């Protein structure tokens, strides 16, 4: 139920309250109370009225504000009992004590303004019920002394004594009942505070003061009314102690509530800090930490929506179930972007009672989360592209190997057989004329040359030794064929075929370039495998000046190494030799 009170009416309650307060204390001054007691009685009520106005203005939806104001009014009702006006005194007597009931309500409903637990609804209901019942009895049983007529008449005097005695009995009953209910309220407060999380305690701290105020009320009630066999001096001492504690704690309750509000403002300061931190585009785990700190909730979890679905996952991609909406343990704040669910914050329900804080944090987080989601999408696309590049390179390698094998098993084999057949023919033709022998010799020589060329072609496509013996053997074989001295320092371990092929082609291109352009007198090749990365380096002492951006061979290598997820660099200052370096992850 939401009660809408116009702003003017709400503000109008402030002068009305002050007038009500001054009126009450005027009664006391009129009754010659010491001014210190008048002041002590004035302060707590005003504190309630002021705090109530502030809370009401800031949280029009929260019942705490109106409740505080109402409690402020209730504070002064009892004081009017001493009014010279008979009717005012009688009404004040009847409606006295509502302050305690409203205080119990406040304490149990703070900070949301709602009585969330069934037990607290029952207790507040019982408290207010008892007060209404007492009011009813008091209105029915209280008759002004003047209305009795002549008290010297024994019959009248008897009736008066009987009425007074009945009234005292009923009052004692209600006093006991109300004190009992107050004890229950106190117990509920303590239970509630113990069950709070750290985040909740930051907010619910002030209710402890409220609990103390309730306790003071009990002391006052018991001390004044129910001490059997106590002297009147004792009762007076109890009464003063109760009054004193009541005044102090009753002033502190609204102050405590104000502190709660100021903490809310400080939390908004942490939102500003949050926006700055989120601007640094944090990664998912850090984002959770930042949001957790801004909301003061160490238990905060962030659930991300899988794009295009309604499935939630955590930062590591594990599926998450959101708690039920009526869960008392966890609350959920959903974040949307362009009407699409983006993420959800799963947090302590106590934070949900400061909606503007959650709203600010969520708004700041939305940008970061949106950013995170876009980045994740880009990362996924990049990974797709990288994987497809790697597949293309691997498919190319596989195709080269296939062609190499086809050449080996097909053309080469047939040509060798043909060479053999030519030899047989030549052997059989020994007696024939020399021109035939010459022709056969020339054919054999041609065939030899063709076989040699075919062999080099096959080797260039994909050297068999790379598959058979590995990278070290294949590079060694390359080095043997290079007309420039090559120093080798190569780890012998076998690596995944795509890694070996990439490293091999880096070295092959480096050596080919050395022979073609570098005019080097020496080349050093090092291949080092550590920490899951294969580092290939080819350094010559030639003329340098190679440019990866121009040479198609070098650019091809760059592409190839990048496709394997590695890095490729060329250092080639003019006159300072050339170094090719490739770092290839080994999967």
């Amino acid at each position, binding site marked *: 139920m939401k009660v809408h009170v116009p702003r003017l009416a709400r503000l109008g309650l402030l002068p009305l309250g002050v007038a009500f307060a001054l009126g009450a204390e005027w009664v006391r001054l009129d009754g010659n109370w010491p001014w210190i007691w008048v002041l002590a009685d004035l302060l707590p009520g005003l504190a309630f009225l002021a705090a109530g106005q502030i809370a009401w203005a800031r949280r029009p939806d929260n019942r705490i504000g109106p409740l505080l104001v109402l409690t402020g009014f209730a504070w002064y009702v009892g004081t009017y009992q001493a009014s010279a006006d008979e009717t005012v005194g009688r009404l004040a007597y009847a409606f006295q004590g509502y302050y305690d009931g409203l205080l119990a309500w406040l304490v149990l409903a703070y900070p949301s303004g709602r009585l969330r637990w069934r037990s607290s609804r029952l207790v507040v209901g019982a408290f207010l019920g008892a007060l209404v019942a007492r009011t009813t009895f008091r209105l029915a049983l209280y008759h002004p002394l003047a209305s009795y007529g002549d008290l010297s008449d024994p019959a009248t005097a008897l009736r008066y004594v009987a009425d007074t005695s009945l009234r005292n009995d009923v009052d004692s009953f209600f006093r006991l009942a109300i004190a009992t209910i107050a004890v229950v309220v106190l117990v509920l407060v303590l239970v509630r505070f113990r069950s709070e999380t750290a985040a909740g305690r930051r907010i619910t701290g002030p209710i402890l003061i409220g609990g103390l105020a309730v306790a003071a009320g009990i002391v006052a009630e018991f001390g004044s009314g129910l001490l059997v066999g106590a002297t009147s001096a004792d009762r007076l001492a109890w009464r003063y102690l109760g009054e004193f504690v009541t005044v102090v704690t009753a002033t502190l309750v609204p102050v405590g509530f104000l502190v709660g509000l100021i903490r809310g403002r400080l939390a908004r300061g942490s939102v500003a800090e949050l926006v700055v931190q989120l601007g640094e585009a944090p990664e998912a785990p850090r984002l959770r930490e930042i949001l957790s700190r801004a909301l003061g909730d160490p238990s905060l979890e962030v659930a991300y929506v899988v794009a295009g679905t309604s499935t939630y996952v955590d930062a590591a991609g594990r599926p998450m179930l959101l708690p039920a909406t009526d869960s008392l343990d966890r609350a959920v704040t959903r974040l949307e972007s362009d009407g699409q669910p983006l993420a959800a914050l799963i947090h302590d329900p106590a934070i949900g009672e400061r909606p503007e804080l959650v709203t600010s944090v969520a708004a700041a987080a939305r940008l970061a989360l949106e950013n995170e989601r876009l980045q994740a999408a880009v990362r996924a696309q990049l990974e797709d592209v990288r994987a497809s590049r790697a597949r293309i390179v691997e498919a190319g390698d596989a195709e080269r190997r296939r062609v190499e094998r086809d050449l080996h098993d097909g053309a080469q084999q047939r040509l060798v057989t043909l060479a053999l057949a*030519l030899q047989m023919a030549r052997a059989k033709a020994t007696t024939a004329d020399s021109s035939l022998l010459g022709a056969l010799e020339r054919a054999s020589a041609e065939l030899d040359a063709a076989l040699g060329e075919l062999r080099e072609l096959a080797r260039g496509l994909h050297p068999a030794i790379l598959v058979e013996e590995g990278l070290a053997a294949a590079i060694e074989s390359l080095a043997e064929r290079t007309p420039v001295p090559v120093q080798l320092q190569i780890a012998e371990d076998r690596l995944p075929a795509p890694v070996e092929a990439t490293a091999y082609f880096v070295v092959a291109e480096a050596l080919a370039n050395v022979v073609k352009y570098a005019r080097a007198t020496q080349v050093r090749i090092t291949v080092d495998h550590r920490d899951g990365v294969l580092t290939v380096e080819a350094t010559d002492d030639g003329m340098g000046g190679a440019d990866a951006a121009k040479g198609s061979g070098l650019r091809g290598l760059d592409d190839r190494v990048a496709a394997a997820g590695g890095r490729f660099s060329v250092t080639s200052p003019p006159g300072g030799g050339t170094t090719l370096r490739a770092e290839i992850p080994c999967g």
Partner: protein
Amino acid sequence: MRIVLADDSTLFREALAAALAMAGFDVVGQASDADSLRDVVRSTEPDLLIVDVRMPPTHTTEGLDAAVQIRIERPSLAIMILSQFVETRHVLRLLRDAPEGVGYLLKDRVGNLAEFVEAVRRVSGGGSAVDPEVVARLLGRARVRGPLDELTPRETQVLELMAEGRSNAAIGERLGLTEKTIEGHIRVILSKLELGPEAGDHRRVLAVLTWLRAS
């Protein structure tokens, strides 16, 4: 001499068998993969095996591996490995695992039947045959100045033939020199390379090739 041929191409096997028969060899069995090669060797007890490096199923080095394995069981069996390409590593592995009666030639070499038959005879006699391309590549390999530069052209020629596995007599015949002269050259070469005198041609081959590869 009893020979077994192993190659996955029937056409090539038949042609080589015919050529060897013509040269006076007795081809007693043929095999198209490593498993059947073992069976054929067991049943025919040959003196020499001619095997292609690559054979089914993986077409990598099954032929080479099977031959080395068979040699461990039959140390007196000579083996001649043929390959579409020559790799120094393969030669050294072969010579290390089975130093006597081993040959490793490019498959193309069968196109020079006389040379090939000579190599087959050498291997079956316990000698070695290393493909000239392997030797040429190791000798011709670019290196910073070293002992090889001290050799005279004649000594280099002798070293080359020696590394191919030829005997002193054969080298002398090839170069038109006496065996005694060749022995003299070889002593000088070995001392220039700081290699000790080796007993047996095959040991000499391994030592020289290892030296060439390492330098």
